[in-house]
């Protein structure tokens, strides 16, 4: 019996497959929030497609009772582009890891973003290659000791927010596995955004990189290291004790005992310059005076979608030349008889 999307519960989004992540893996939480979000989204399960690459995170589609593609390493974004171009009517989600999307799949990601297909990309960033058992990834901090870097990694890591801003992303957000409520909000906003939504989720790999985001997720440190962005609201954190203000072109960490909220930077996700600056809040939190890490919607812009522009051209061609006639096509312009 087909259920009405309005009547979905989380369960309707789940499959009968055993979920095979390690106990303690952050992926579970994301799965749960996704199922919850989609249960409320009002889109039929048969009109939804999850596309992933290869990695622990990329197992995700098997657990969603929608259509799904578990593709090859790094290519989910490319595959989703074709799918969306062919089928504007579908709700398309891309699930990917930091290796899948930023290492082997980096190129397809940035091209998807500039083309602005209306798909939602959820990047599970655990700063490690989980599935291949623990090599460093393009987001691993320099010096990280992993199987492939016993003396510490040598790569300056990507700042994913900065990279996708540079690539022309129209929706940039960050969330974390340990904050289900926030994650749900963000997933919802991404699903509502028309154009490519890019969501980076800090996800704990319990086995190979446990605690990589501890400073942001642990109760003790979270207040001081994270700032949750809300449009129209000032950048305050640390239990309203601290804030960020703009001193000319420089963000400045201030105490709310010295400044009032009105003096602070007011978040405006439509302001490109500010968004660029926010993605630069990327300090190592052990640094004195580190700026807190922003979570929430950093940037959002409305720009034409590739698939719509593509359909427009087709419609226009039909309008101008008329619906194509096969015999005319085969004959071409010039014929002769024998």
């Amino acid at each position: 019996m087909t259920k009405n999307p309005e009547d979905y519960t989380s369960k309707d989004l789940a499959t009968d497959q055993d979920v095979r992540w390690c106990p303690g893996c952050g992926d579970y939480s994301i799965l749960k929030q996704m199922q919850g979000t989609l249960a409320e989204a009002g889109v039929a399960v048969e009109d939804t497609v999850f596309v992933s690459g290869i990695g622990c995170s990329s197992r995700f589609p098997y657990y969603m009772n929608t259509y799904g593609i578990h593709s090859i390493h790094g290519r989910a974004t490319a595959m989703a582009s074709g799918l969306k171009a062919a089928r504007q009517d579908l709700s398309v989600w891309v699930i990917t890891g930091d290796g899948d999307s930023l290492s082997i799949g980096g190129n397809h990601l940035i091209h998807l973003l500039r083309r602005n297909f209306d798909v939602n990309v959820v990047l599970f960033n655990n700063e490690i290659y989980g599935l291949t058992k623990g090599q460093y990834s393009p987001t691993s901090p320099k010096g990280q000791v992993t199987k492939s870097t016993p003396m510490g990694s040598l790569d300056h890591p990507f700042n994913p927010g900065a990279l996708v801003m540079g690539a022309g992303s129209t929706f940039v957000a960050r969330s974390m596995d340990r904050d289900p409520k926030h994650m749900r909000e963000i997933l919802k906003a991404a699903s509502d955004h028309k154009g490519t939504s890019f969501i980076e989720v800090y996800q704990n790999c319990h086995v190979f990189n446990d605690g990589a985001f501890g400073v942001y997720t642990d109760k003790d440190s979270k207040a001081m290291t994270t700032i949750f962005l809300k449009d129209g609201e000032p950048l305050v954190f640390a239990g309203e004790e601290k804030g960020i203000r703009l001193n000319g072109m420089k963000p400045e960490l201030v105490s709310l005992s010295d400044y009032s909220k009105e003096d602070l930077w007011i978040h405006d996700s439509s302001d490109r310059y500010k968004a660029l600056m926010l993605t630069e809040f990327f300090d190592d939190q052990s640094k004195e005076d580190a700026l807190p890490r922003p979570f929430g919607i950093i940037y959002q812009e409305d720009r034409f979608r590739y698939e719509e522009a593509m359909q427009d051209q087709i419609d226009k061609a039909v309008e101008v030349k008329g619906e194509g006639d096969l015999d005319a096509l085969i004959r071409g312009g010039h014929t002769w008889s024998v």
Partner: protein
Amino acid sequence: MTKTTEKKRDVVILFAGDSGDGMQLTGSLFSNTSAEYGNDISTFPNFPAEIRAPQGTVAGVSGFKLQFASVDIFTAGDEVDVLVSMNAAALKANLSQLKRGGTIIANTSGFDKKNLRLAKYGDAESPLLDDSLEEYRVIEIDISKMTKEALVDSGLGAKEIERCKNMFVLGFLYWMYNRKLENTEVFIKNKFAKKQQIMDANIKALKAGYYFGDTNETFTSRYEVESASLPEGEYRSIMGNQATALGLIVAAKKAGLDLFYGSYPITPASDILHELARHKNYGVKTFQAEDEIAAVCASIGASFGGAFGVTASSGPGIALKAEAIGLAIMFELPLLVINVQRGGPSTGLPTKTEQSDLMQAIYGRNGEAPMVVIAPHSPSDCFDTIIEAARISIEHMVPVMFLSDGYIANGSEPWKFPSADDIAAIKPKWADSEKSMTDRGYLPYKRDEKLVREWAIPGMKELQHRIGGLEKDDETGNVSYDPENHEKMVKIRQQKVDIVADFVPEIEIEQGEDSGKLLVLGWGSTYGAIMTAVRELIAEGKPVSHAHIRYLNPFPKNLGDVLDRFDKVLIPEINDRQLVHIINSKFLKGALPLSKIQGMPITSKEIREKILETLNES
């Protein structure tokens, strides 16, 4: 002085000049007129590798070869009867192709000091002045000057006038071969509809060339090639890539599917993209991806969504697609991969033709990843063959590789085109929300007797399922690490390909007896040359036959039988014995190779000689 007119059965003209000289256009126009006249024609353009290599050099020479005849022909010809040389480099580059006693039409202003030096002729030694061209008939015309004179009042600048000189040559050749100018005039008028001055100048130059032949005393002989006895009907001229593009559009419509074409530009495949992009009113979606991997993946994504996903490239790009093609083989979805082959390996000879990606097509993937491989044998045959490829891919839910090549892609020939109604419908095996449901839920990898699974696409209620590149459980499609299931699935994927042989025609002998001493077995673009050589030899009473393989994987069911009926099998290929290896492996046959790996088609003469040699040995 009366001018004589001599009848000819066939003539090969090679228009050669600098890339800027407009030889491609000149050649096409001559072909069109000849076709219209009822000749059978076959053309072969030969571009320089550079966009515009330094003017006047051998590297910069652009050539357009065409054969037209009063009989049916299959190639653009081996030896050239008339070589048009717009400059010294054009002569140098092509003289070796000219028949003994052939005609050279030389543009003398292209043989000045500068041009001679650029063509690397010895110090100021012009081939027009020494006796190196003794064996040929040389017609010297200062084409540049004549054109300039003709257009002195045109109002055009020197550069624009210079650009009309190809029309002068064309006019002259029309005179030589007794052709009317009409067709070309119409073309010029359409092309320059908005540029009256240029239109007028081109027509004037064309006529000037014609009249020059007509009036000038030196030129006493004209030729006539009568119309060929082609089957009655309506014809058009078509190039291989164009036929491929049209076939794709037709196939998609015949299947009731949207065509999605994901591709990344590469010579010589790009023109398919260009052609398709012009037909958006047929609902065609073309997607120029960021690279070949994205192109094939986007096409797979589109097929998953229920479109007909097609991707194309040439050798290096096909290499990049290999991993994703493997995935499509696991998915068991329709996917058409077009390889317009060019000279390899690596970047190789991008503007030259070769058949050297056959092994790659059949074996170039990791694991046991069999796919259907099919090759057209002439420009117009691309149309039929691509529709066949589409039919197999869609009806059997398998990826198919279509192996064209640069020779076919850029060559053209008259085509007695079909009407759309004559083309059979293609029937996707759609799943159905109700009928496809089983007690065990929906089974995406359940198969029919052809081993074909159903195509369930997003939007179909209750049929949600997930597919991936990991090995799948038979029927459910769930990930399975079960050893026996793996073996079963590997074999099923192989059988799915093998079974296609039950649904395609058996191979037939094209010419010659059904059994005998020697079978010449070809595939792809060697067709014309083999046809020509074998036809001649049969006429001479030699015991030789010709068969041509369109279905390279799986082979036609009767291929082994056919081979067994001949003492010897000769396989001409533009590669290093690739089909020979496969035939020998499958049939333990000891087939003989005729390999030519020069970035050029094998000529019928070469095939003829090899056949004679082989017959003599036995």
